[in-house]
């Protein structure tokens, strides 16, 4: 491959990975914030079940976080183990 096409591949991959991380972490963060707000409100409203709510809150936060982790995984694959790098000779 021409070095020009290799450079273009590298530039496009980098830009796409950067944009994907930024866009992909917006929604999980917002939704986690909403879950936490609702959890805190209800913990303050009923302190007797506050421990149960806190336990479930952490589990739900980890599950919501996993969508952001999926985006991170794809970006790591594109950066470090890109299946198309062999075609371009990189």
């Amino acid at each position, binding site marked *: 491959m021409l070095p020009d096409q290799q450079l273009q591949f590298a530039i496009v991959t980098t830009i796409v990975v950067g944009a994907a991380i930024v866009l992909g972490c917006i929604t999980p963060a917002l939704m986690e914030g909403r879950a936490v707000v609702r959890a805190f409100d209800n913990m303050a409203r009923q302190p007797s079940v506050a421990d*149960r709510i806190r*336990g*479930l809150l*952490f*589990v739900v936060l*980890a*599950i919501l*976080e*996993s969508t952001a*982790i*999926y985006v*991170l*995984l794809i970006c*790591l694959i594109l950066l*470090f183990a890109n299946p198309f790098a062999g075609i371009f000779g990189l």
Partner: protein
Amino acid sequence: MGIESVFPRTLFWLGDVPIRDSVLHTWIVMVVLLGIGVWAHNRLRIWDPKMWQLVVEYIVDYVEKLVVDTSGRAFPELVPYLTTMISFIVLANLLGMFPAMKAPSRDLNTTLALSLVSLGSWQAYGIRKRGFRAYMHTFIEPMVFMLPLNILGLVSRVASMALRLFGNVIAGEMIGAVMFMLVPLIVPLPLNMLGMITGVLQALVFTVLTLVFVVEAISSEEDETGVAHEAPGTI
């Protein structure tokens, strides 16, 4: 070292099977857990227990309470299995904090193996509880064309559990590796602490998901409320 040490590499070959360093680390975790089990075997006491016994009892009580909270009933046959699973994953994730070792769950093969064990366990519990034909019948439960969707649900559960654990652990290790390359002195400390927190949390999430799937496979016919096909309680 660089960032390439985060990815697992093959150490030696046993015949045709490559042995990676993550396999070696899982052997270390297994030896530690088995050692604790063998050592504690005849040293448990009812009166005047020692500190380690209280720690172990706390973990087992926590898992038991988790089973009761999630399913509404107590399943005493699930507690040893879930305690083993959560101890293994916690130790595997925290192994990265020791000097010469890295977390074995940064290898997708390890987490996929754990997910497949989990899949096999809830299928086995369902088959043993309801019989083979009745359990296979639940795959075409509402209508026959739900069969590919149910199978896809199985595959997606296994894949999501494996990828979640793998992604969290390797993200933590990579952040640690990059921080050590940039500022090796004080800055990696809070990031390593965050890695430890997410390690324990992801072990808990893996165990809770396994528990939910096992309970869903065991009990939805003979609940005390008498309502059939009811998804078990709260998660």
